[in-house]
């Protein structure tokens, strides 16, 4: 069970909607088991079926996370036309086993779905989200 404040869930959905039909992506920094900061990042692929966090932004964010002694807690991206579940591409490119992978699906535009997964050595395990106000 992973506790997350509603405003971060809303922010991920808002980012996904803003980038639609392209996939959005971003990073969650954590401290003491809660989210310290949500970073919207640039998807250099600018594509409806690929994401890749801009390498320069990635390095800057990692620096900031280290400087603040935060943890690299999560990565989020959107699937604009498919379900909120890691695709084979997501799994094969999941190089951050310590992080939680958040998926935002806009497949049903009236009901965006956010789910979270651990992806470790090619295995996908869902983490239930407990959303608080």
């Amino acid at each position, binding site marked *: 069970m992973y506790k997350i404040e509603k405003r971060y869930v809303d922010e991920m959905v808002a980012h996904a909607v803003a980038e639609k039909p392209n996939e959005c992506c971003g990073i969650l920094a954590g401290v003491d088991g809660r989210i310290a900061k949500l970073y919207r990042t640039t998807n250099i692929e600018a*594509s409806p*079926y690929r*994401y890749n966090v801009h390498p320069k932004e990635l*390095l800057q964010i990692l620096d900031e996370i280290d400087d603040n002694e935060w943890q690299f807690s999560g990565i989020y991206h959107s699937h604009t*036309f498919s379900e909120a579940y890691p695709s084979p591409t997501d799994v094969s490119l999941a190089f951050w086993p310590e992080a939680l992978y958040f998926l935002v699906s806009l497949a049903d535009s009236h009901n965006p779905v956010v789910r979270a997964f651990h992806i470790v050595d090619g295995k996908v395990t869902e983490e239930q989200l407990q959303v608080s106000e």
Partner: protein
Amino acid sequence: MAVTVYIPTPFRRLTGNRIYVEGQGGTVAELLDNLGQVYPALKDMVYDQQQEIPAHINIYVNKQEINALQGKQTPLKEGDEVAVIPALAGGSTAFTPEQVVRYSRHIIMPQVGSTGQRKLMDAKVLIVGAGGLGSPAGLYLAMAGVGTIGFVDFDTVDLSNLQRQVLHHTKDVGRPKIESARDTIAAYNPDVKVIGHNEPLTSDNAMEIIPQYDIVLNGADNFATRYLVNDACYFAGKPLVDGSIFTFDGQLTVFIPGKGCYRCLYPAPPPPGLVPNCAEAGVLGVLPGVVGCIQAIEAIKLILDLGDSLNGRLLLFDALAMEFRQVKLRRDPDCPLCGDNPTVTELIDYEEFCGSPFAMAQHA
């Protein structure tokens, strides 16, 4: 050179949980070799089977991504800070609902399927000439979902083109061909990114344009461009789907670098003026439809790695006899370009080589 290397969390288990490690090397490549000796597991992450840095690994020198510097050969000096960071990347393999329907006849074929359709959508094909051959080839590649199609053409649409060049319409007469090609393709398939190179292909720009693509399709109407495209594709290591037409006859083949080229087939151009072009001799309007469509099929087979390529064979089409014949082609060991002792080692002056500076502006 001793440099400090930043290791992000996912790789720290490979470096004994150290955030920073020391490494040695005068270039990024030497540093990676040095790190690989100390931390063999790290080496497997930063090199693929071809010993290249995979696209999903970002390497930075003093906060600058090395692809913006000199890649693996980026020099290092004492005290530099290097970071090796895996990309945050992925993506849905799903198609949009519209794409599922649009490409359904491809996707249901096991030889294409969703994987093949994705390959087509990721492919980049350059078409030299948005004329007689480039028109049907470009149209069918676009409708097949080839994601990026480039056209090199500096001509404008002439009324006499409309007897065969299906990319252009009557309302386009006088417009640049690449603009009219872009509009026509967008109307058929808005998924396709069309890149227009509104300039003649020359020895100066060929090695900038051609390496941006996976495959080149030749629809040039003159010998100088044909030799130029052949040589540039060989130097850039790109497969070339070649086609040509004359009155009622067509010729087709595929050149794969190192397995024969246009110069193996035709070591020297004909004397200037001996072979008339389409503007002088005429051409059956339907003929480039047949030849251009076969070129599109060969390009798709290369993208999908399907069937037997025309590489090593010259296909001859005679519309009056209604016959297709084939002759075998071989790489010529004495070829000045791809032979054992090449004398053409860079692009040359092709108009001088072909001896006919101006007959070349007209289009097939």
